[in-house]
């Protein structure tokens, strides 16, 4: 086993602390000295990945800048949003302190609990926006499916890590059943966006578990064959409409194609350098539906142009690559699979949202991580990123304890 190498910036006693200790100024201010020392030791002790944190905060900052414009320059919106981001980052850091074995310990229980809840949603669910997604527990309304975006890769990573790898045929079948049952339940709600995210998260774990290429090829063929069946038996009319609209948005410019067209107009009018911050007209004039949520990328692309998109996509790519790097060097089998699956799910988020906004994917309600204004989605993403950091930093944490 590789020996643990503590990272200098995180756990080593830095020159700053030494200087503070030596500083004569603190002789007069004992309280302040202890406060700073306490704070620094806390920062030193908490586990986090500075590279990931840096890129995430940059994206969040861009999200606030774009949101300020999209919200018609509402300072209140920015304050609320910044507060949410702060809470979300705190949540992420809190999760990062949790030992990763805890995630896998609760994984089967969480998974089972949510599947039961999904069934409950079908029986007692609250009808919101024409879809049965919400479960009202009296004090809080939440979407059980949302939990599965994390619960699914956790469950599969836990399960596959206990089996010989690469997975044997029987294990693959069991894993596929674990993926299929909740996915079907979510599709029936109907919530295609969440179902796609949950399913891909599970399949990514299988992929990283070393699934034989023959199986991968088999999946691709099976999905190709299933697509027409989905079209005729599973998908709802509004979902079909969105798909059809994708191929010809101009067929119904004020109906189904409206979102796509308005979004493409906003992006296209941005050009290479954009029309400038706060200068975007499409978003400010309500042409863009949900400018601060699902379609915030269009607002951003109009104002900052292609160059802005290159920057933003570069940051997302950096986050994903960092996540894959963490996975590649993670110690535990379950941890590395989970880390890789989380990174790729993050990619799916960005791709589905951006693809919808630039008009190459149908309109599906998937938010853009750290840019879209939204409650539960942000919480899920930040918990996932917290897990990623936990997986990254656990080695140094454990090494310290030893």
């Amino acid at each position, binding site marked *: 086993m590789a020996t643990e190498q503590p990272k200098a910036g995180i756990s080593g006693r830095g020159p700053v602390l030494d200087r503070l200790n030596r500083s004569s100024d603190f002789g007069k201010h004992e309280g302040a000295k202890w406060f700073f020392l306490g704070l620094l030791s806390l920062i030193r002790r908490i586990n986090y990945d500075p590279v990931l944190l840096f890129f995430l905060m940059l994206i969040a900052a861009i999200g606030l800048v774009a949101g300020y414009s999209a919200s018609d320059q509402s300072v209140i919106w920015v304050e609320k949003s910044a507060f949410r981001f702060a809470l979300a980052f705190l949540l992420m850091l809190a999760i990062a302190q949790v030992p990763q074995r805890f995630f896998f310990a609760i994984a089967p229980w969480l998974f089972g609990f949510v599947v039961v809840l999904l069934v409950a949603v079908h029986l007692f669910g609250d009808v919101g926006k024409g879809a049965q997604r919400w479960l009202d527990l009296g004090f809080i309304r939440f979407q059980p499916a949302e939990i599965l975006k994390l619960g699914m890769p956790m469950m599969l990573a836990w399960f596959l890590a206990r089996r*010989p*790898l*690469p997975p044997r045929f029987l294990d693959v079948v069991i894993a596929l059943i674990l993926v299929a049952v909740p996915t079907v339940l979510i599709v029936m709600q109907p919530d295609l966006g969440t179902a796609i995210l949950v399913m891909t998260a599970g399949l990514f774990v299988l*992929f*990283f*578990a*070393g699934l034989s290429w023959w199986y991968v090829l088999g999946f691709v063929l099976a999905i190709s064959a299933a697509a027409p069946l989905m079209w005729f038996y599973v998908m709802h009319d509004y979902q079909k409409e969105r798909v059809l609209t994708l191929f010809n948005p101009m067929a119904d410019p004020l109906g189904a194609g409206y979102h796509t067209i*308005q979004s*493409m*107009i*906003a*992006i*296209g*009018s*941005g*050009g*290479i350098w954009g029309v400038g911050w706060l200068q975007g*007209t*499409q978003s400010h*004039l*309500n*042409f*863009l539906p949900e400018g601060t949520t699902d379609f915030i990328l269009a607002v951003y*692309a109009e104002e900052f*142009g*292609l160059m802005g*998109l*290159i920057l933003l*996509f*570069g940051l*997302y*790519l950096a986050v*994903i*690559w960092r996540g*894959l790097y963490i*996975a*590649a060097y993670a110690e535990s*089998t379950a941890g*590395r*699979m989970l880390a*890789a699956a989380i*990174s*790729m799910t993050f*990619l799916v988020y*960005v*791709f589905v949202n*951006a*693809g919808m906004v*630039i*008009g*190459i994917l149908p309109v599906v309600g998937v938010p853009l991580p750290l840019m879209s204004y939204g409650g539960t989605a942000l919480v899920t993403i930040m918990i996932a990123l917290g897990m990623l950091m936990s997986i990254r930093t656990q080695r140094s944490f454990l090494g310290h304890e030893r």
Partner: protein
Amino acid sequence: MSIREAIRDAHINRAYDRRLNDRHLSRQIFRRRVLLAALIALLVFTVLLWRAAFLQVDRHEHFSEMAENNRTRTLVIPPERGRIFDDGGRVVADNVATYQAQIVPEDADDLKRELSMLQQVLKLDDDTLHDLKERIKFGRSFDPILVKSDLTPVEMAKLAQLQPWLPGVSVESSLKRVYPYRQLLAHVVGYVGRINVADLKRINADLYQGTQYIGKSGIEREYEDVLHGKPGFKTVEVDAVGRVVKVLKVVPPVAGQDIHLTLDVPLQGIAAAALGSYSGAVVAEDPTTGAIKAMVSRPSFDPNLFVDGISHKNYQALLNDPERPLFDRAITATYPPGSTIKPVMALAGLQYGFLDPNKKFFAGPYFQIPGDKHHYRDWRKWGHGWVDLDQAITQSCDVYFYDLAYRMGIDPMHAFLTEFGLGRKTGIDLPGESSGLVPSPEWKRKTKNLPWYPGETVIAGIGQGYMLTTVLQLAQTTSILAESGKRYRPWLVASNKDKEPSIELKSPSFWNDVRHGMFDVINSPHGTARRIAAPYLIAGKTGTAQVFTVAQNASYNAKDLAKKLHDHAVFIGFAPYDDPKIAVAVMAEHGGSGSGTAAPVARRVMDYYLGFEPKKTVKMEFVKHGD
């Protein structure tokens, strides 16, 4: 160690190795797959950026244009229509602010409560309220929706009082075309109405964006270009639902020009009152300028009915009225001129040498074409005896003019009357003018494919038969007679004054021969219109236009005939004789005799125009008939 043991150990070692190998292998696979995933991520972002570049670089211009169209709307500000004034500066077509209550549904706190309040305050019936609710349902929530138009001051006051409880309800003003003199000037001034498909074909639609009204008849139509003005534009920024966010640019409209008519409303009122219950027309013209001072056509209608769209019931009533109030009897209707053509015939006879003004002619009870048994009878059964030209005009001697016409023939007659302006439009600035008709053998062959009969020449000599004139043409003829050949095109708008070439006769004295005959019509004891002799000197000519032909041996008895079959009464005249200031033509349908019915009408008009009638009575009559 036995072989068996050695084999077992080897098995165990191999299994251990394989487990180690498996772990190693799965890690190798994992790292390869992570690398693959990293490449997939790169590929995904490349695809996204490639697509974004396509939108933002290749199609940038296209989408920029679409964005611009998305964003700005051009709203039209319609111009204010020019007003129309009479000669005395009275407004005859006005723009009056009317007030309407409207509601913006999204601004209302409690729409249901507010609607029931509005129903009470504005006394809306249930149907109206139902209709209003429908319009609110299907309209856009931020667009004002009309609740009631033409609010009374009381209703406006109530709404103002209830304003705090009626958020979203507002009172807006708009301009409505109003004709204060209603029926009096309906045919001349005309009216405006909503633009329809037929109108769209004759106008530049760009100039009429946002305009409600367009001139449909009369001056309103003729001077549409002047009155309408030019619309202004407001470029505004709107959001996706069409709500105005910001005004970017305003080009103010250019209001239409006001028009001043030559008409005098009180004179018009006098003329209308003088005509009384007769259908017909009165046209008064200033012979020295061609200015039309009065132009009455009765019965009339209220043009205000047409402004905001006439109801089907009202329109049917107007169309089915046997008196045909919409028909303009001054310029569109044509009548046989009857004896009023005789002065012109006399001039033709003098001009072409068929008459010696002093030569006496024996006029018996009838005229016969040589070799024909038909009797062309005189209006006076016993005839007029020996008459010269002056007496022939004074007594309206039919036989004298039968003889003249027969000797002259139709062609010179046609030529002279046409030269005089009959049989063609006077060119007045009104739409719908008829040209009338001066018959000729050529015309008859063309339209009826029949030869011309000499008898038709004979009756044409007294203005019967095919000959047709408008009342305006009669007034114009009178003006030319009054001015001894000088003429102006009749005109309604003060700023225009078109002189037309004068009529030159072989001897200027011919004019006076005829004019003096007309003078004696009123001022000699034998004149047909001697009863209208006035303190000033009037010259004129009476006439009757035959509605039906009396059988050869029957006599004409007015009392026995239904009013419908009475002859039309005609009179033309000008005054003062020595310095003509006014020329009048009167046509009273089924009025019986020109002297008894039409001449007094002209007298009243002249009296007023020349200041011989006190203003007070005028006012009374004007109110009664003008309204």
